[in-house]
């Protein structure tokens, strides 16, 4: 046998092994997971609609990536960090999970981020807002995709102070998300020349908000900062209307989803300033997505629905470009990628994991201004991504402090 023939034989053998590996891989589905509150307070914010949005993204992508079909796993984390973390671990160990979409609840997502780092599976946080996820609790595998408490505060608090709302009193949900939101807003209010007169920490899911609201009114502040979410947000705003507090204080929603505004009705919610990453009625592209989503879910999508759709596409694109689902290679690709779809036109993922993109400061329309169903917001201003998410703080060891 000549040397040449030996080489050829070796080459053929190698090709055979590679082909066998390839064949093995083709038969295996790519698995995208979704852990969210599917039954509780936040189930309409993302919930079943989120799973539907992931499926829509997969369909739009063509149904396969790297020649392999894509399946979706979903489960209810019940707003319990231990449930979210153990389900994530189980999928990573037993189901060949390639990426996880994190739904609502900051506490649960902090627990899941630890699993992401441990198991080396990328986590796209879509439904949760706590900015600690890209600061103290950051990991190399976390992407904070749709919005965070920093961007919400920079949007709403700055807009309200500039419109003359100088003195603030906060109604704060007494858990990680609420306190992070209040802290972020307080900083923005002060930086813009406003004053923080105080706060009352309200237990989560309180049955009645009226007594806390009377305390807010007693403070003499002109702005009522609502540092809460979901049902707590809706019920506190409803009670503020009932007690006539909205006549002396201007309510500012630090986090409100379109589903909340829909359940409250414009009569109660009108005039409210809020910040959102996305709105269904921005342009023909968002309206088309809204219509597709509405046909399935009988409601217009929230920013989380559009966010999880976009997050799924972004990950699939990165996998396609990287040519692998290997977490480190995909993460490297994600940090290089420019994100442009119906969710955002100029998004990018920063070293600390924040997906920087423009945010919209909105005002809720009056019933007279609203012309058709779900016509709820008018744009106050579009806030550039860098302004919304601010400079890198340096609290995340993966990303040095920026002086931007």
């Amino acid at each position, binding site marked *: 046998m000549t040397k040449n023939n030996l080489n050829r034989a070796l080459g053929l053998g190698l090709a055979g092994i590679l082909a066998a590996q390839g064949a093995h891989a083709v038969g295996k589905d790519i698995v995208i997971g979704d852990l969210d509150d599917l*039954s*509780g*307070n*936040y*189930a*309409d*914010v993302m*919930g079943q609609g989120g799973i539907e949005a992931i499926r829509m993204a997969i369909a739009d992508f063509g149904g396969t990536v790297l020649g392999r079909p894509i399946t979706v796993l979903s489960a209810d984390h019940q707003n319990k960090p231990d449930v979210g973390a153990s389900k994530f671990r189980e999928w990573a160990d037993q189901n060949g999970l390639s990426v996880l979409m994190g739904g609502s609840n900051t506490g649960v997502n902090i627990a899941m981020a630890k699993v992401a780092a441990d198991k080396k599976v990328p986590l796209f946080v879509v439904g949760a807002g706590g900015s600690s996820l890209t600061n103290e609790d950051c990991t190399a595998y976390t992407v904070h995709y749709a919005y965070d408490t920093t961007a919400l505060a920079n949007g709403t608090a700055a807009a309200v102070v500039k419109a003359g709302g100088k003195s603030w009193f906060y109604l704060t949900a*007494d858990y990680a998300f609420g306190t992070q939101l209040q802290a972020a807003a307080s900083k923005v209010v002060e930086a813009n020349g406003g004053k923080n007169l105080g706060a*009352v*920490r*309200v*237990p989560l*899911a*309180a*049955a*009645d908000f*009226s*007594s*806390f609201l*009377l*305390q807010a009114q*007693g403070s003499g502040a002109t702005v009522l900062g609502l540092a809460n979410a*979901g*049902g707590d947000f*809706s*019920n506190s705003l*409803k*009670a503020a209307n*009932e*007690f*006539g507090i909205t006549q002396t204080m201007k309510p500012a929603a630090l986090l409100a989803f379109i*589903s*909340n505004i*829909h*359940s*409250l*009705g414009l009569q*109660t919610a009108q005039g409210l300033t809020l910040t959102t990453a996305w709105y269904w009625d921005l342009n023909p592209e968002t309206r088309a997505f809204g219509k597709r989503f509405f046909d399935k879910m009988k*409601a217009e999508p929230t920013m989380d629905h559009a966010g999880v759709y976009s997050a799924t596409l972004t990950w699939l694109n990165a996998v396609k470009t990287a040519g692998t689902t290997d977490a480190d290679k995909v993460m490297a690709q994600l940090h290089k990628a420019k994100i442009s779809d119906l969710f955002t036109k100029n998004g990018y993922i920063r070293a600390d994991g924040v997906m920087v993109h423009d945010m919209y400061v909105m005002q809720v329309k009056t019933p007279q201004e609203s012309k058709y169903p779900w016509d709820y917001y008018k744009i106050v201003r579009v806030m550039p991504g860098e302004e919304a998410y601010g400079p890198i703080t340096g609290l995340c060891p993966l990303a040095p402090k920026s002086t931007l």
Partner: protein
Amino acid sequence: MTTVFGIPVVVILGQLTLGLVNGAFYAMLSLGLAVIFGLMGVVNFAHGAFYALGAFAALVALQHFGIGYWPGLLVAPLCVGILGVILERLFLRHVYRLEPLYGLLLTFGLALMIEGGLQQVFGASGQSYPVPESLQGALNLRFMILPKYRAWVILASLSVCFGTWFLIERTRLGATLRAATENAPLLQAFGVNVPLLVAATYGGGVALAAFAGVLAAPVILVTPQMGASLVTVVFAVVVIGGMGSILGAIVSGLALGVVEGATKVIYPEASNIVVFVIMALVLILRPAGLFGRE
């Protein structure tokens, strides 16, 4: 301005009045639980779900049948009460002779199914029920502005609570009901239809929860979970008042609402646990509850 512990008296009065409003809900809900437990020995874990169901029944009546608030206040509890009777006949009657745990599990399962069903149909984020026109606006009580609707809640709840107490403790029907709990076979021997009586009791108990749900609908967002958080507090109220004691449920419901209101001024963070702290103290000092018979 006069102050107590550095807090202006007007503020305290305002908060106590609001506490009374919340206490009115606690009283109505714990009353229903006490009636069901007292006469049937069943710990009705589905009580919060029936409360939510009452609110949704009123909402559907308004949106789909044009039945307004006032008739809704009768129609919704009636429908929920009938559903209660049906559920009692179908499921609950089979567990009376078993350990109390079975009734508890059964009603807990019912609660999950009712809340899950509501969520399936109406979604999780809830809907608004408008305040009836005749009760819009507010009363100026000098120390506070009280929305008329909240004043009506106190009035309606007190009337219903004491009406129920009177029915059970002071009428012939009530005497028959109480006799059924003492010795059902003997009462049946006298020709009284005891199973019907028990079914009606369960229906009445859950109708009370539904009534509270309709009363709450204009105040808070109507969501499938609206009863879930409330019912834990209400169970504590029943334990404090004494399991099965009707007067105990009413009085401790109102009183705990007021205590909670005071806590909201002094230390807001503790307002959701103060009731449980009191429950722990009562269980240590008077295990049968404040109004319970040892």
